[in-house]
């Protein structure tokens, strides 16, 4: 039982990492209906900026705040300069542009900071708690807490604030939103900016655990994507739960399904996700969209 609990904690810790990045994916999808393949690399790049600032002697929280601000402006700029010219093109075209961004950010970070592993200071204490023999890392609890906080903020933002509703409306159906007097072009830019901020938060949160290097987000993004899809791209809460489930599934399968062995745990986790999707095609928390006939 203790083993099980310990594995559950390990899975939840990894899952919290997925969840925090999945939130950024959901945010950009909510506000622009685009899947941004460069989301992970943008987050990585922001995290490097934070690292550089801290390395230059800036206190952690000041560096964090400045990074978020830079990430916001970076996100807005990318939307205005790079996405805007192709926004009328098909979704596939935009997807390819984000693939281009992925390559650019990854290689740029490698060129500037190198590919060698860097440690990143954690805002949380590095100690552990012991609850009846089960070890819980304070860092993981911190990541978990912040992911929940961001989730709550996003849910409130999209549901109750005028700005959030305007962004949602823009993403879903542009022309009527424009007729209602919403500055749709700025809403999209704002969406990119906010997604960059959430991504940067995720990067700074997970960097102390997965360490900092230009490829830190590549595996991560796939699982975050899986988590977001599992939970449903419509809902921040779903993204968090989806991320956690993916993490737990990975940890549990490796340990308990011994005839498969750990070297297929990834495959099994993926198979489970596909199965879930077959029964809930829009994710666990997504609502079936009405079909236009």
């Amino acid at each position, binding site marked *: 039982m203790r083993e099980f609990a310990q*594995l559950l904690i390990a899975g939840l810790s990894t899952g919290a990492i997925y969840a925090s990045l999945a939130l950024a994916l959901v945010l950009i999808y909510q506000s622009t209906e685009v899947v941004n393949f460069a989301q992970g690399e943008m987050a990585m790049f922001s995290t490097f900026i934070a690292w550089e600032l801290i390395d230059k002697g800036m206190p952690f929280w000041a560096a964090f705040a400045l990074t978020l601000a830079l990430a916001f402006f970076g996100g807005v700029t990318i939307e205005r300069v790079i996405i805007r010219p192709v926004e009328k093109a098909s979704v596939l075209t935009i997807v390819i542009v984000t693939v281009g961004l992925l390559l650019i950010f990854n290689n740029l970070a490698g060129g500037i900071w*190198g590919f060698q592993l860097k440690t990143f200071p954690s805002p949380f204490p590095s100690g552990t708690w012991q609850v009846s023999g089960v*070890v819980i*890392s304070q860092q993981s609890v911190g990541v978990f807490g912040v992911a929940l906080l961001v989730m709550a903020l996003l849910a409130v933002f999209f549901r109750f604030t005028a700005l959030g509703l305007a962004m949602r409306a823009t993403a879903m159906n542009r022309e009527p939103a424009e007729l209602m007097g919403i500055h749709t072009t700025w809403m999209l830019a704002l969406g990119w900016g906010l997604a960059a901020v959430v991504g940067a938060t995720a990067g700074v949160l997970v960097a102390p655990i997965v360490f900092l290097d230009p490829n830190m987000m*590549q595996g991560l993004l796939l699982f975050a994507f899986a988590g977001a899809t599992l939970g449903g791209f419509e809902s921040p809460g779903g993204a968090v739960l989806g991320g956690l489930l993916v993490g737990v599934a990975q940890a549990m399968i490796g*340990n308990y399904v011994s*005839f498969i062995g750990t070297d297929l745990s990834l495959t099994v986790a993926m198979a489970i996700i596909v199965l879930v999707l077959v029964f809930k095609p829009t994710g666990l928390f997504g609502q079936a969209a009405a079909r236009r006939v």
Partner: protein
Amino acid sequence: MRGYRWLTVPVVIAGVLLAAACGSSSKSTTPTQAPGGATAPAASSSPSAAAAPQCNKAPNQTEGVTATEISIGNTDAYSGPASAYAVIAKAEDAYFKWVNDQGGVNGRKIKFTSLDDSYSPPKTVEQTRALVEQDHVFADFNPLGTPPNTAIRQYLNDRGVPQIFVATGAATWALDHPKYPCTIGWQPNYQSEAIIYGKYLLANRPDAKVAVLFQNDDYGKDYLKGLKAGLGAKASQMIVKEESYETSEPDVSPHVTTLKNTGADVFIVVATPKFAAQAMKAAAQLDWKPLIIDNSVSVDLNTMKAAGAGADGVISAAYLKDPSDPAWASDATVVQYKDILAKYGSGADPNNVFNFYGFAVADTLVQAIKQAGQDLTREGLMKAADNMNYTSPYLLPGITIHTSDAQKDWAPIEEMQLEKYSVAKGSWERFGQVLEGAVR
């Protein structure tokens, strides 16, 4: 469409079961390796093994060599997931520039052409062919990675182009040298190192329960094979759990949790830096205090610092001097390395061990070219590489680069020395004698 939905379940489950079944029925043998692995004689040693292997197929033995220049090619991963290793090729480039400014080798300057293969075997084939057929390089030096090197081995040997001092620790480069006489490795192979750990455990912790975390690829599996060879008959009794991870996983701590639960008291980490640091850190956080043995791939001080308290008392093995180790701060070779890198390396980090590795292997190439003499031929270069006895200043004292046709030894470096890490001192301390882990 509803009808299809139920079909899915058996299809998916059957797929997974099939994959698992096929996998588990085939644990022991690899087609490329004889059953029994490292200890068995090389499957491919030819009947005419008495004769020394000769790399003499090239119709033009001096292609790429002029009176003033030697053209050397290389492939490395400048992009893609393995791009951390591109540092090696850049360091080699810096080293050759320095050599050229010193007058070159035997009066010839080295023209170094390094291309990006993204660690993808088909790309490696393409780029290697560009090097050979378009740039007319004399030799392909230190290409990166086991799968990429495997992909080009037949091609280079058919053409008689030296594939010299490859950047991978697979055992096959030495074992299959008679079959592929134009191909030779350099660094201690992964099996050698693991054999050394196995022997150490047998001598010092014969009753240990060993848990292994390894990367699910050739590198991880070679270590595992070597460890079993080193432990010999006691391997199955001592190793209580082998757990693999994929490089796409962000965090290996769930695996460490599983390993801790086995009650093991020795934890062997066969992982690249990021995952090794995570594993050691996770062990400490879980309050698990086994004897940790960390593979030499991940021993640079950055990694050890990232592991935090988990790095204390960790044992590993080394063959290169560590440029970040204060113990070598005034060593003439290390000082010179830092100077050259500062001048030619365009801002490269001297504490990155890959830079030092690049210098060391490039230095060995220069040595081999010197040894091959003024009349440089491809066959001659490989003959030189096959018969070296070189005390490289980049290696730890007591470790030499040794190959010999007479002794059928085509593994340039086979010795290592054990070392122990201290968090308080922030450095490694070598102990015991230089150990040999020859794979025959």
